[in-house]
């Protein structure tokens, strides 16, 4: 097959931009699964919820979706805190999190997705913003703004989170709770409260990731399911608990998906992520940068 340099370079560039976005989608799971060891497979459900809320705000009030998401993030934070509290009170306290905790999140994923279907229907929804449409040209490379802006926002989000986790007291307490809960208790910090804050933070990121998603592509409720595999593939590939690892893993996946899509057709895209996941789990489960 003829591989033109032009096509390849653009596929790579698109892959990088896509990867940046994927990192924003995944960073919440890096926190909840990588650091807190909670398998929140409902994460994509929250992202789609975020997309739809951004959609409503954008179509009813005309506000830019990303700005709306940042404003709404605290509401998602509260929701995350609520969900964690339920998870803790019902499962974690009793050590039942493996079977029942998983089933709980699975149920939540379905409830969220189907409720959205019932409210909004299965039509694709999209938002309107000044950067959806135009692109900038750098030499051979064509960078659509609707991919570039989300990528930049994603990088900013991850940078902010990494700073928070490594520099602030609360952030370091979160990293600590993953490693030694007893020591944390002895320092008079409540592990449950710290975990709740961390989980709430991970759900808050879904508000922003959801807005980014609907900027990049039109959204319908069942799209969330494609992202389950991507999110966990990136998390595992990058190494659990490592935000820089998540970023690298996301870029890798984005590039591979983009190249596959360009040269073999988009219908193979879902298999790429999941294939990645299976291979990583089989070969190097600790990921590239894992602990």
């Amino acid at each position, binding site marked *: 097959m003829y591989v033109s340099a032009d096509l390849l370079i653009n596929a790579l560039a698109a892959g990088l931009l896509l990867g940046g976005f994927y990192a924003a989608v995944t960073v919440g799971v890096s926190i909840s*699964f990588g650091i807190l*060891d909670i*398998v929140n*497979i409902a994460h994509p459900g929250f992202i789609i919820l975020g997309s739809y809320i951004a959609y409503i705000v954008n179509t009813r009030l005309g506000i830019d979706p990303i700005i709306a998401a940042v404003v709404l993030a605290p509401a998602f934070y509260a929701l995350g805190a*609520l*969900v964690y*509290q*339920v998870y803790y*009170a*019902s499962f974690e306290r*009793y050590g*039942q999190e*493996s*079977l*029942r905790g*998983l*089933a*709980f999140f*699975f*149920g*939540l*994923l*379905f*409830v969220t997705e*189907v*409720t959205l*279907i*019932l409210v909004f229907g299965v039509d694709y929804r999209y938002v309107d913003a000044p950067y959806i449409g135009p692109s900038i040209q750098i030499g051979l490379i064509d960078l659509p703004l609707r991919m570039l802006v989300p990528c930049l926002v994603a990088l900013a989000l991850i940078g902010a989170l990494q700073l928070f986790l490594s520099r602030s007291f609360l952030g370091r307490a979160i990293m600590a709770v993953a490693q030694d809960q007893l020591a944390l208790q002895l320092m008079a910090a409540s592990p449950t409260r710290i975990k709740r804050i961390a989980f709430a933070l991970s759900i808050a990121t879904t508000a922003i990731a959801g807005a980014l998603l609907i900027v990049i592509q039109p959204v319908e409720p069942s799209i969330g*399911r*494609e992202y*389950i*595999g991507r999110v*966990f*593939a990136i998390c*595992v590939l990058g190494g659990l608990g490592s935000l820089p690892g998540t970023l690298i893993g996301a870029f890798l996946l984005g590039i591979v998906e983009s190249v596959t899509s360009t040269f073999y057709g988009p*219908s*193979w895209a*879902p*298999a790429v992520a*999941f*294939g990645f*996941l*299976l291979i990583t*789990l*089989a070969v190097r*489960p600790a990921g590239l940068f894992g602990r």
Partner: protein
Amino acid sequence: MRTFTFALICVAVAAATFVAARLVGNDYVFFAGYVVLQYIVLATAWNILGGYTGYVNFGSAAFFALGAYATVFLHKAFPVVTTYFVDEPYALPIPVLIVIGAVISGIVGLGMGYLTLRLRGAFFAIATLALAVVLQTFITNWSYVGGSRGAYVIRPNDIEPIGPYIQYLFLLMLALAVLALVVARSIERSRLGLGFAAIRDDELAAEASGVPTLKLKLIATTISGALMGMAGAPFPYYIGYLQPTSAFALDYAVNSIAMPMIGGTTSWIGPLIGAILLGSLQQVATVTISSSVNLLIVGLLIVDCVIIAPTGILGLLQGRRTARDVVADPAVFSLLFAVNVIPIYFLHQEAFAARPLEIIFWAVLIFLAFARGRLIGLRWLVGLPIAGAALSMVPDPPRLIMALVLAICLVAGLVRRPRDPVARSTP
């Protein structure tokens, strides 16, 4: 009771079921019954890996669809085989297809298990999700078996000496259900079952006690996968036209988890109860509500069950109390309360015939209000959702008043804290 005796009893019950179904005189019983039987097999199969061994499989649809598509492939590859049962030539007899489906799904289960079971249970669960999507993508892109356009499997109208073809399929599925139950029960009572339980309770301690955990987990995955593949093999003949979206339908993943959890995961009876109850409910409801609302109900039942009645119906019957104290946490009370209002709202918008399904969720709300009310000393709290339920039964229910009643209940339930500190011991 010895396994052989149990098997005989199952066969007798199955035969009686078949005869009773024929007496009804309406083929619809067979069509609906086939689906319920299918779920008995799927739920039982899931439970061997999930309930007995503690490893959650989110990709039941993958193994089911493998069996179904193996049938489609063989149907296309070997279209003409004559047997003396039927006049027209048709593909390999279904029992053979069932065995092939079992072997293929079993091998895939084994392979996937080998790749992922050395890691933690969470990774295995995620990998099963991945498997389902990868398989669906492959099959959607594989035009030999029809790809996304689908494949037709022509089935004969009648088969001697039984009669209508659907009755033959029903009989086959009955046999599979009996097989699944016998397998599950004999595992439960055997050394293998004890090993599974040890793995589920504490895998590290099981290893230290001499249990070869990897080997046993692989056995569980293989048996579970094989049974699911068997359930899938006759499916193309049942449905006539098979598309990836129907073979990999969400219903299979959700139901094969919901049914054992609602019925009770510790024994073979649990998935049976869950499959019969939930399966029949869905068959009845399928006429009156959309498939989305159906999935909503099942998803919500999973959430309710897992928090309120973690041991399922079986646990309730055995006298294990529900986790009543868990509503002491205001977050649990408010999330569960809010989330159970959703299906009531949507069921109201469906046909009137769907209303009875609401009762399930009114019952949950009443239970929540009762338990919470008792803990915070507001015993009248339970009256509010009861009133709401009564209101919803009238032909033209006052939605606003119902919403108000529920809102008051939620707020009132949250203003006070429980009077007695909740015991910290495990339920």
